[in-house]
């Protein structure tokens, strides 16, 4: 690639005019597997969130419709929510005592 082309490509990327690579089914599967693993851990802690389940369902539905960008976004959201529920369950193992009537 000539120096001129490199400059042109850089400009296109910077201005957002070069189309980003479309997400693939493999990218979705990886994102979904990570979300599912986190949710499984939340389940073991008996602390699943409804919103996590909703995002997982949304991700599956979008993937089935071939919209892998949306599917990956939902899977990542699900993973973040599941991680938050894990954090909550873990920290509450001792923090619940702060609320106890004594």
């Amino acid at each position, binding site marked *: 690639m000539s120096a001129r082309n490199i400059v042109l490509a850089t400009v296109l990327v910077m201005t957002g005019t070069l189309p980003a690579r479309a997400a693939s089914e493999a990218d979705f599967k990886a994102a979904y597997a990570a979300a599912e693993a986190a949710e499984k851990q939340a389940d073991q802690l008996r602390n699943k969130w409804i919103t996590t389940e909703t995002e997982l369902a949304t991700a599956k539905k979008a993937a089935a419709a071939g919209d892998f960008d949306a599917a990956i976004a939902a899977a990542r959201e699900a993973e973040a929510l599941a991680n*938050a529920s894990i954090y909550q369950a873990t920290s509450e193992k001792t*923090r*619940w005592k702060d*609320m*106890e*009537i004594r």
Partner: protein
Amino acid sequence: MVKAFSLASILALALLAPALADDKPDPAADQKAFQEFFVKKFPKVKYDDFVNGPYSMDEGLHKQWEEKEQFPPYEFAVETGKEMFSTPFKNGKTYADCFPNKGIGIRQNYPTFDEKEGKVITLELALNRCREANGEAPYNYLKDEMASLTAYMAFTSRDKKMDIKIPSDPRALEAYENGKRYFYTRRGQLNFSCATCHVQSPGERIRSEVLAPALGIMNAMPIYRSEWSGMGTTSRRLATCNSQTRAVPLEPQSDEYRDVEYFLSYVANGLPISGPGARP
């Protein structure tokens, strides 16, 4: 040096002892503290009125409820439950054969701790076990038949004082402690515990609902809720509380739900059974 070390050890132990004592489970002390907390927080509420949930918190609501009690919405459930209770199973036996005192006036003793099994047995669970032992299919734990049966059984126990026992069995104490922990633990995306609403905020509103105090909350079960347009059991109430905080509800009669019912019922010992109740 040895003398100084011994002195330091004694001092350390003396400082640590109260902290260790604080962590030792003491249901009787919990019960006293729990009841005193609500009495102090709501000095104008008549003690026995705590079992009437949101109606004890708001004078206007209390008046509406008194009028509603003229033709209570749970009446049909009590009638249905009475009929179901006396209708024999296919083998000729009835629910009365499964319970002490033929099942009449015993609501105040549930949940109970089964030392044989080492677990908490709620009234709903005992009813389904009775059905299964007599060759009948178990009922849905959340509403309909189960709500009607428990409504009738609660009705026969009206005004009897809640009387939950924690036997001298480490497993019973553990179940009680697990129930307590469940009650105070935050969960769901909204980061609420049961106590967030029913200890920190009774009398306050969440949208249009006036929150009930935790003290005596089990005494009114099962309940007719206008929001549900029907009756619901304790299992339904616990599952709904979970979903309202955006937590996925546990399966009905899971250990956690049984234990939290045990805890909440024990700390309400001495308060009258008011179930079945009616709620907005």
